């Protein structure tokens, strides 16, 4: 049952001449881990310490790159080959690319936290550098020349002085590299780069535009059935009884019940949809959720909180000078959904002794043990193969759908495709957690920050938990992991500015209202919203222009440069906020914010111009200016796309998004109850990329998300004199804030 691997070919005039990068999607049908082979026919090595795990030189002179991180639409499929081709010395058109298959690619960790390039890509760069050194040494022996007199380029090693070279395939013969990644293998001088730093087009884009792209939603196996899982009406409810009568007349529908796991399976997808709607199930009552209107108090007073001091540096000035102003404020960021455009989907083929799962999970390797556990199979008999899905921005329902498919495939003894409904996705995807922050601080008249104390109430992360508990195994009573994993949500709770004293205390919550998971830039959009809003509050208290205030206390030259660039883009006029327009019917204002992501990665400065309509409370973001420094840029257009998307998605989160729930269930289960940004909401976007070829490349998918909330809130304050501290900034909330200020 093996079909030839489907290949998506792409050529465009900007592609290096002579051919096109080929991306092989693993649509090869069933292939057990034991029989999985590399392109050269040798068994695949999967140890990420070995060069052969990442690179294979093929007989035809092409090179296959095996990447454990996956492309979710963020562009790794071009960026990683650019890195590999550059460092090896071969044209990009000679690179073949395999991603996220537990049988073929090494485990490079989950594709999360903006680590695709900075960790995944850098491992592959080092593998390629090690390989290039080995190839040069082999050529030196063959050509009887010194390695330093040779160069690797165009897929061969040749004398620098000119003359015939030897191709990589010929140098290696039918051997593998048999080398550990050498951390000291010399890297190319970025000044010599010809592939890295270019906006090469992504190989998946043409297929996506022509309708030939293969998503997991489109993947089919012979004999495959379609399934829908019926979730309970209340979280935590148990299944009391099922009445199958209403679906008896639907063609070929089978009802599967395993404890509290209920599903319908059919040959025809529409029959499964109808059966899921028409099946009558009785569930127990459950009301495990807190009252939404008391969520803030609930978080503050939750039982079993553990406190941790994350930062405590410097000493508060005591006594404070007479002209010091002290301030305190609370900020809140609600639970939000990934709100993936396509509900989650997966295909599984589970046999008695092995399982293959096709999934859009960001962590195929991470999930292997989890799946092996609930299927009761040895880990080496479980294979997860990545196929692109609808964009997810952390952990959405992809992994749950994959578990559903695996459970059902085993139950019916055939391959099964599970497609979630819109209500499943909005209702049951793991959520970005709620975040509550209190900040207190003091500032003197010169803008010196005398004291800064952040306290945050956020769900804890269970130690060592790579994944999240999955719905299917839990309902079916199968072995499931237990705990919380909202991601690294406590970072950037401290300001990037100098202060006499900075303290950050986290109150870790034992539980979360809804199952949490990392959601794009986990935690940092909220933390940066609070920190950069409060920075503006201090600046206003001191009567100092917000940019001037930041520059007085910022020492990092890369950060300073970005803030200056944003000021120039916006033709920023130095004056304190709020501006003079505070009484206008449509008030306009400008605001800015800044982040050094995780204090050691990407730098972003962002300015915004907004209009606030007093009568309606509506906010329109008119213009966003973003200066961005993620070190060495691999693919400038790819970085731009990530920044554009991050900004727009976060404007959506800040203006519109909040998961609504009652004591039993999520209520915002479609696009009208959980609206997201539309074309009419589009601002003008201006992006200024700072490339630093000699700095390590760091992430571009997350950092620009974190500055959006505060830039927006600060611009609203500048326009109206009203400070918004609760996300989302809905018209009702804005109107209430405007009215309370007026009264």
């Amino acid at each position: 049952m093996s079909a030839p691997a489907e290949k998506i070919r792409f050529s465009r005039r900007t592609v290096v001449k002579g051919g096109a990068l080929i991306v092989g999607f693993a649509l090869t049908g069933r292939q057990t881990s034991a029989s999985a082979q590399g392109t050269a026919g040798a068994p695949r090595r999967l140890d990420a310490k070995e060069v052969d795990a990442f690179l294979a030189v093929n007989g035809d002179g092409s090179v296959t790159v095996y990447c454990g991180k996956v492309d979710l639409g963020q562009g790794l499929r071009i960026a990683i080959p650019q890195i590999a081709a550059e460092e090896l010395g071969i044209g990009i058109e000679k690179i073949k690319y395999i991603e996220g298959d537990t049988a073929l690619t090494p485990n490079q960790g989950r594709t999360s936290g903006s680590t695709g390039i900075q960790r995944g890509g850098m491992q592959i760069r080092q593998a390629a550098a090690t390989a290039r050194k080995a190839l040069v040494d082999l050529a030196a022996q063959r050509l009887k020349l010194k390695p330093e007199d040779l160069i690797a380029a165009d897929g061969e090693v040749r004398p620098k002085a000119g003359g015939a070279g030897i191709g990589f395939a010929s140098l290696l013969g039918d051997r593998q590299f048999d080398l550990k990644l050498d951390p000291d293998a010399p890297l190319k001088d970025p000044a010599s780069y010809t592939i890295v730093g270019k906006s090469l087009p992504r190989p998946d884009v043409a297929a996506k535009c022509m309708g030939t792209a293969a998503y997991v939603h489109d993947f089919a196996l012979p004999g495959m059935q379609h399934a829908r899982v019926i979730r309970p009406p209340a979280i935590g409810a148990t299944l009391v009884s099922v009445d199958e009568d209403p679906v008896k007349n639907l063609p070929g529908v089978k009802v599967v019940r395993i404890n509290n796991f209920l599903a319908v399976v059919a040959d025809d997808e529409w029959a499964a949809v109808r059966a899921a709607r028409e099946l009558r199930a009785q569930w127990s009552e459950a009301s495990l959720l807190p009252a939404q209107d008391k969520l803030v108090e609930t978080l503050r007073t939750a039982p079993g909180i553990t406190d941790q001091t994350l930062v405590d540096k410097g000493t508060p000035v005591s006594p404070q000078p007479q002209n010091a102003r002290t301030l305190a404020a609370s900020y809140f960021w609600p639970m939000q959904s990934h709100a993936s455009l396509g509900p989650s989907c997966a295909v599984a083929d589970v046999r008695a002794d092995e399982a293959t799962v096709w999934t859009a999970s960001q962590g195929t390797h991470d999930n292997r043990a989890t799946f092996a556990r609930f299927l009761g199979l040895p880990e080496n008999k479980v294979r997860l193969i990545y196929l692109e899905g609808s964009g997810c921005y952390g952990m959405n329902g992809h992994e749950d759908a994959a578990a559903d498919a695996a459970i059902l495939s085993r139950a019916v003894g055939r391959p099964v495709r599970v497609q979630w409904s819109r209500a499943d996705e909005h209702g049951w995807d793991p959520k970005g957690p709620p975040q509550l922050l209190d900040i207190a601080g003091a500032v003197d008249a010169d803008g010196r920050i005398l004291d800064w104390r952040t306290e945050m109430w956020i769900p804890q992360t269970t130690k060592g938990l790579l994944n999240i508990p999955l719905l299917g195994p839990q309902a079916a009573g199968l072995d499931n992991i237990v705990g919380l994993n909202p991601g690294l949500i406590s970072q950037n709770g401290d300001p990037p500015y100098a202060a006499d004293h900075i303290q950050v205390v986290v109150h870790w919550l034992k539980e979360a209202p809804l199952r949490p998971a990392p959601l794009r830039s986990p935690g940092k959009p909220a933390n940066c919203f609070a920190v950069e809003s409060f920075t503006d509050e201090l600046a206003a208290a001191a009567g100092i222009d917000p940019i001037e205030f930041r520059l007085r206390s910022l020492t990092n030259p890369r950060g300073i440069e970005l803030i200056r660039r944003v000021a120039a883009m916006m033709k920023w006029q130095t004056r304190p906020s709020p501006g003079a327009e505070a009484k206008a019917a449509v008030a306009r204002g400008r605001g800015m914010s800044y982040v050094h992501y995780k204090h050691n990665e990407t730098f972003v400065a962002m300015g915004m111009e907004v209009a606030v309509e007093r009568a309606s409370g509506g906010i329109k973001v008119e213009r966003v200016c973003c200066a961005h420094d993620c070190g060495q840029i691999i693919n400038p257009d790819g970085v731009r796309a990530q920044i554009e998307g991050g900004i727009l998605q976060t404007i959506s989160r800040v203006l519109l998004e909040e998961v609504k729930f009652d004591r039993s269930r999520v209520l915002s289960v479609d696009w009208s109850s959980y609206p997201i940004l539309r074309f009419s909401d589009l601002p003008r976007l201006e992006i200024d990329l700072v490339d630093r070829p000699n700095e390590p490349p760091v992430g571009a998918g997350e950092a620009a998300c974190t500055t959006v909330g505060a830039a927006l809130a600060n611009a609203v304050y500048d326009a109206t004199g009203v400070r918004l501290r609760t996300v989302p900034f809905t018209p009702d909330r804005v109107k209430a804030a405007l009215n309370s200020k007026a009264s």
Partner: protein
Amino acid sequence: MPSYDLRVNGSVRRVDSSDADKPLLYVLRGLGLTATKFGCGLGQCGACTVLADGTAVQSCQMTIAAAQGKAITTLEGLGSASKPHPIQAAFIEHQVPQCGYCTSGMIMSAAALLAKKQRPGEDDIRSALEVNLCRCGSHVRVVRAVMAASGQRG
């Protein structure tokens, strides 16, 4: 079982369905035309947009019975690798999609707009695509690409 003759991408396809209300979306995907995506089934997101007699419709909201007699065009039938539709070419040139799940619907809506209005303004584009949601934030490039496809600078 009743059968329906559908005109899809220029050829007639006979489809059996016991359910006259079966949404066109599932019919198309059952025919292997999987570029048309399921997004909500509620007519709220535009991921399943196709052309019916040249008008953009959400195929999750059109029944197989209603589709009969109309000329249905999906992304697969809009252009070909050798001759992409101008909107497709512009989407590729401007590297519009990220995950690309909304792209099929976006291109179909934009193609319907361009068929009606050769040189739409940015406001026309925004309002024609208002129903099409994108979660990755590719909107700015969508507008730019549609402007470019109609020979304008976006």
